[in-house]
C-alpha cells in the first residue's frame, strides 16, 4: 500500500508550492469560473417574455383592439409595430424585427357579432422552438379564454386546472440553471488545472526526472489530485455562496450532504484530467482535449435538455457522462431537498468512474515512460 502511493506527500507539498508561486493559476482557478457564473447566471432566462410582435389589424374595431390588449397583457407578446399590409408583416418577420405576426381580418368584428367563427392569423417564427411553442400556446390560450367569455358570460367553467409548481414555485430559470452550471464550471476548471500541471512537467523534462526516482505512478497522480481537488472544493463553496446570496437560489437539502457528494465528482474530473495528460504531448493539446469534454457535458448531461426527451441512443450516452450524475445530485439536493438516501447511487457511480479513470491514467503512464 505504502509503496503503491510512494512519493505522494512530497509531490503534494511541491504542488502546493507551485499553486502559491503562480498567481496566474490561482486567478484562473478561482476567478474565471466565478465570472462565468455571473455571466451565464444573469444572461440565461429560459422563460419566454416580451416576444417582439408585429400586428396587421385590418379590422380596426373595438373588438380587435380588445383582443390585442389581452394578448399584450399576457406579458408574452410585445406589440411593437403595426403593419399596413400582409407583405409588410411578412417582411418584418423575415428581417427579424418581429418573431410573431398577428393578422386580424377586416371581417373579424362582423363575424363575431354574427355569431360565426371569427378567425385570427398568428404567424410564428419557428427558428427558436421555445419561443415558438410559447407564442402558440399563449395565443391559443388567450383566444380560448375570450371565446369562453363570449359563450358563457359570467358562467362557471366545467373544468378548471389549477397548476401548482413544486420546488421552484416561481419557475425562476436561475433555480434550474445555476445548480447545473456548477457542475460544468467545476469540471472545466478541474480538468484543465490538473492536466496542464502534468503536461507542463512533461514539457519541462521534470517528468522524465521523476520516472528515474522511486516515485510510484499513483503517488505522483494522487499527490497532484489532492491540492487541485482542494482548490476545486474551495471554489465549489464560493460558487454555492454566490448562488445562494446573489442569485437567491434556496438550498432545500442539506448542504453538507451536497459537499460530501461533490467529492466523488471531483475525483472523476481529476481522473479525466489525468487521462488527458497522458494523451497530450503539449499544453496546447491538453487544453484542446480538456475543452472537448465541455460540449457533451453541456448537451448530453441534462444540463440544458431533459435526458428523458433524448433519443434512446443518447440516453445511453448520457449515462457515461459524469456531469449527468452530479447535476442529478445538485438539482436533487438544492431544488428538491433530496438527501443521500435518494441520491447515493449517483455518488456511487461517480466514485467508480473516478477510480477507473485514475487507474487508467496510471496504467497509461507506466506504459508510456518505457518508450
Amino acid at each position, binding site marked *: 500500500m505504502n*509503496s503503491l502511493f*510512494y*512519493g505522494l*506527500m*512530497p*509531490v503534494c*507539498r*511541491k504542488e502546493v*508550492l*507551485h499553486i502559491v*508561486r*503562480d498567481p496566474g493559476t490561482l486567478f484562473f482557478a478561482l476567478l474565471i469560473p466565478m465570472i462565468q457564473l455571473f455571466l451565464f447566471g444573469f444572461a440565461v432566462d429560459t422563460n419566454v417574455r416580451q416576444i417582439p410582435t408585429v400586428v396587421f389589424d385590418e379590422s380596426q374595431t373595438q373588438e380587435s383592439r380588445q383582443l390585442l390588449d389581452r394578448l399584450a397583457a399576457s406579458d408574452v407578446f410585445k406589440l411593437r409595430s403595426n403593419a399596413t399590409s400582409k407583405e409588410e408583416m411578412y417582411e418584418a418577420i423575415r428581417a427579424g424585427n418581429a418573431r410573431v405576426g398577428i393578422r386580424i381580418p377586416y371581417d373579424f368584428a362582423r363575424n363575431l357579432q354574427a355569431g360565426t367563427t371569427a378567425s385570427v392569423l398568428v404567424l410564428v417564427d419557428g427558428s427558436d422552438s421555445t419561443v415558438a411553442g410559447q407564442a402558440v400556446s399563449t395565443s391559443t390560450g388567450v383566444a380560448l379564454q375570450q371565446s369562453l367569455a363570449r359563450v358563457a358570460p359570467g358562467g362557471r367553467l366545467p373544468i378548471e386546472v389549477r397548476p401548482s409548481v413544486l420546488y421552484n414555485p416561481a419557475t425562476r430559470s436561475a433555480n434550474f440553471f445555476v445548480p447545473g452550471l456548477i457542475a460544468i464550471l467545476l469540471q472545466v476548471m478541474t480538468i484543465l488545472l490538473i492536466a496542464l500541471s502534468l503536461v507542463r512537467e512533461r514539457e*519541462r*523534462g*521534470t517528468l*522524465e*526526472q*521523476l*520516472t*528515474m*526516482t*522511486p*516515485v510510484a505512478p499513483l503517488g505522483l497522480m494522487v499527490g497532484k489530485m489532492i491540492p487541485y481537488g482542494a482548490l476545486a472544493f474551495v471554489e465549489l463553496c464560493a460558487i454555492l455562496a454566490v448562488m445562494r446570496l446573489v442569485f437567491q437560489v434556496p438550498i432545500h437539502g442539506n448542504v453538507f450532504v451536497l459537499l460530501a457528494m461533490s467529492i466523488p465528482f471531483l475525483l472523476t474530473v481529476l481522473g479525466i484530467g489525468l487521462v488527458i495528460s497522458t494523451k497530450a504531448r503539449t499544453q496546447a493539446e491538453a487544453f484542446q482535449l480538456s475543452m472537448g469534454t465541455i460540449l457533451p457535458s453541456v448537451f448530453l448531461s441534462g444540463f440544458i435538455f431533459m435526458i428523458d426527451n433524448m433519443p434512446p441512443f443518447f440516453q445511453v450516452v448520457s449515462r457515461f457522462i459524469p456531469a449527468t450524475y452530479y447535476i442529478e445530485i445538485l438539482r436533487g439536493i438544492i431544488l428538491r431537498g433530496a438527501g443521500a438516501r435518494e441520491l447515493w447511487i449517483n455518488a456511487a457511480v461517480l466514485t467508480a468512474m473516478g477510480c477507473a479513470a485514475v487507474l487508467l491514467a496510471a496504467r497509461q503512464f507506466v506504459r508510456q*515512460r*518505457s*518508450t
Partner: protein
Amino acid sequence: MTAVIQASHLTIRFGDFTAVNDVSFEVGKGEVFGLLGPNGSGKTTIIKALCGLLTPSEGTGTILGMDIRKDASQIKRHVGYMSQQFGLYEDLTVAENIAFYAGVYGIKGPQAVQRKAEVLKLTGIEPYMDRRAGRLSGGWKQRLALACAIIHSPEVVFLDEPTSGIDPVARRALWDLLFRLSSQGVTFFVTTHYMDEAERCERLGYIYLSKLVAIGTVAELQQMPQANPPGTARIQIDTATPSSLLDTVRAKRGVREATIFGRSIHALIDADQLEPLRTSLPGVSVQVVEPSLEDVFVTLTNTIQEAKQ
C-alpha cells in the same frame, strides 16, 4: 575490478527500429565512464534500460548486482540521474528543489538535514538557497541538478549530456566535482557528444548506429588497430597556411583522411607514401603522431560506413 554496471548483449527494439544493438560492457566501482556518440545513437536508451525503465528486447544487465529486468524499483533507490534538461522546478527555490528530491527518495528527519547540508557544501550552491531555480545561470542550474541527483547518496550516477549549453568554466567545475565524488567511490556513467569531455573519462565507449564500436581507456583507443589501419601512418603537418594546403594534401597519393587542427593538418596516409609526401612539401614540418581521440572516432566511423556500402 568489481563491475558496478554490467551489460551483456543488450538489445532494445522499438517496433522495427533497433535503438540499441547487442551492446556489452562493464563499469567498475568509482570509475568515470563516458559513452560518446552522435545524437540518436542510443545513449539515452541505454541509460533508461540500465535504470529499469525499459525492458531490453534481448540481453541482460545488472546494476550493483541487481537485475535490470526484475529489480527496477530497488535500482532507482541506489542510482542518481541527471538529464540534459536538469529536471528542476524553476518556480521553486534551490532549497525547495533539494527538499523535494530528498522527499521523493524517502530521506527524512536528521538524515535529510545532514544530506542537504552535505550536497549544499559539495556543490557550493549554499549562497543561492532562496533563489528560484529559474533565475540561476546555466552552470548553477547544473550544480543544483547534480545536488538533487546525489541527495540520496547513490552509488551510481547517470549523467545524460550534462554539459550542453554550459560555459567552459562551469563545465570544468562540474568535472572536478565528478572526480571528487568518484574518489569517494561513486561510479559515474556520462554520455556526451563532446570530444574534450570524453577525453576526461577514465574509460570510454563509442556508440555509432546503435552499436558499441569501441571501448577502452583513451590510450587503448588510440592504439586500436581499426584506428591505425596496418600500413598507414598518422601525421601532423605544421604550416602557417593550413587551409590553402589542405586540398593539396588531400590530392596527394596515399592520403586517406586529412583535416585541419588549428595551425596544422592531421592526415592518415599509406606508410609507403610518407617519404614522397615529405619531399613534395619542402620547408614544411611533417611528423608522425599518435591519433587524437577525434581521429580515432572519425576513422572508426569511416570504416563502418565503407563497410556498409
